[in-house]
């Protein structure tokens, strides 16, 4: 068993990194969440669970939570539907399909922060690209970012478009893992294309769906950079995500203790959301 111990030692550098930079900050954040603290002074006063109690009466917390759920679930839904459609399309045999795959994946390379800046040019009221296109058809300009919810929906759309390539790749991998004989057998039985998709392709894609949903959900719930550059959390803090709200509380409002507590609550919320989904989807996987 000496060999086992030596093998476990191989994991030491990685574990050390995780302990120092993730587990320790987590413990530190939990500790700080029990204090009222502005983030830099020596003075800290112990509050116990006071910060946590405040969260539940904070209307901005509920708004950020709601927005985060839209960012997370909205992006997941859109990316999976369009990712699957794109994968089915780009799994067909036609010349140049590899080029289109490269094109669909391309926006992922651009920093989210920069993509948000570009998209800001699209949704501006004055001189924005969308309004310019509308005016070509003689329509009145629209005030796209008029409310928090409008900003949230637009950011969700842009995020879904930018990262749809990830889903496409996951589904292409899934489609290529389905043996051809299944579909050939179905064709011989005279099954329609839709039935073939519904009864053969889709059930065999469940592992890919699990992967894609969990990846998208985690990314969507973490969303931050794009909100900064597209809406700065506005109008009137209406498009904040939980991540963005934590950051504002810490560096802007100087409520470090409260920000730490919100961070802990965010982790709990994300765990509660992703773990059952992961388990539910895992159960539905088909062996073949």
């Amino acid at each position, binding site marked *: 068993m000496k*060999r*086992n111990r030596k093998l*476990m030692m*191989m*994991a030491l*550098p*990685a*574990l050390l*990194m*995780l302990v*120092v*930079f*993730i587990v*320790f*900050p*987590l*413990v*530190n*954040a*939990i500790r*700080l969440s029990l204090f009222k603290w502005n983030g830099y002074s020596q003075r800290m006063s112990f509050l116990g669970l006071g910060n946590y109690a405040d969260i539940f009466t904070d209307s901005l917390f509920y708004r950020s939570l709601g927005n985060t759920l839209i960012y997370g679930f909205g992006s997941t839904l859109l990316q999976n539907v369009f990712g699957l459609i794109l994968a089915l*399309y780009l799994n067909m045999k*036609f010349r*140049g399909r590899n080029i*289109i795959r*490269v094109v669909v*994946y*391309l*926006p*992922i*390379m*651009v*920093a989210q*922060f*920069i993509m948000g*800046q*570009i998209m800001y*040019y699209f949704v501006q009221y*004055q*001189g924005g*690209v969308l309004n310019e296109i509308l005016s070509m058809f003689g329509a009145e300009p629209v005030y796209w970012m008029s409310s928090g919810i409008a900003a949230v929906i637009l950011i969700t759309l842009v995020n879904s478009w930018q990262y749809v390539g990830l889903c496409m*790749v996951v589904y292409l*991998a*899934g489609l*290529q*893992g389905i043996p051809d004989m299944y579909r050939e057998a179905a064709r011989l039985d005279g099954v329609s294309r839709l039935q073939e998709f519904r009864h053969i392709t889709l059930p065999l894609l469940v592992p890919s769906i699990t992967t894609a949903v969990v990846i998208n959900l*985690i990314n969507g719930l*973490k969303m*931050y950079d794009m909100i900064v550059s597209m809406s700065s959390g506005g109008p009137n803090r209406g498009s904040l995500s939980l*991540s963005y709200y934590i*950051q504002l509380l*810490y560096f802007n409002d100087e409520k*470090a*203790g409260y*920000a*730490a507590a919100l*961070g802990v609550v*965010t*982790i709990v919320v*994300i765990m509660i959301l992703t773990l059952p989904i992961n388990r539910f989807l895992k159960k539905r996987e088909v062996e073949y």
Partner: protein
Amino acid sequence: MSRNHSSHVLCYIAAAVICCITALPFYVLFNMSVRSIHDLGSKLRMPDAVNWDNYVQAFTESGIWRGFLNSLIVVILAVAMIILFSSMAAYGLSRARTRLAGYIGTVNLTVMMIPPVSLLVGTYSLMVAMKLVNTLPGLSLLSAATGIPAALFLYSSFMVTVPRDLDEAAMIDGAGILTTFFRIIFPQLKSVTITQMIISAIGCWNEYLMPMYLLQNSKKHTLILVIKSAFNSFNGVANLPLAAATCVIGIVPVIVFYLALQKYIIKGQIEGISK
């Protein structure tokens, strides 16, 4: 035959639509970058006088070279740590027949779900205490730590496909664990390593939040932060065309890198996932 033909036409129409939608944002950015600061005209029509001065200004005044170099340092350090530590750990954990190894795998999956921002307060005060604020190695360490869980997960699922006979043969020849790993196992992981290197490098290069708070000294700014400050206004006016030119300069290397290595990114991931 005719049905086949019409479905091919549809394929190409869809292809054209996808290309247009993807190209439009890049076109608008380019259009913005070659106009003068006072030009508030259409973002779709090219300006009458194409103005390359923004690029000249971006290269000479904005500290973009330093940003480029700083980003490169952070990416190289972070990616080296991610690849080395994750592959070693995946090997050790997959070969050790202990219950602890299984637990670590589960904990790793949970850690993957934690958004880095939720730990912001904890991380930042830790970085201050360790005197890692305003240092590039400090940022690299943090980026590496946030990148390790996903890389470890990928390597672990890949390690199953490397036959144990290889280890055993090496062991009979008297090779130690480190020798076995670096001489025998690591070369087997070449394709997944290349894919993971590219993904980690892009993620690290595009990182915004952590550099933003850790690197307040403008001499330490990474490329994204240089771009971000190009959007700041001077005397109440932001030079948006200059900022757009800075964005273009920031995007082009990544796109070239992507096009050169797209085989490893897309095909690499498809093969990696379907294993």
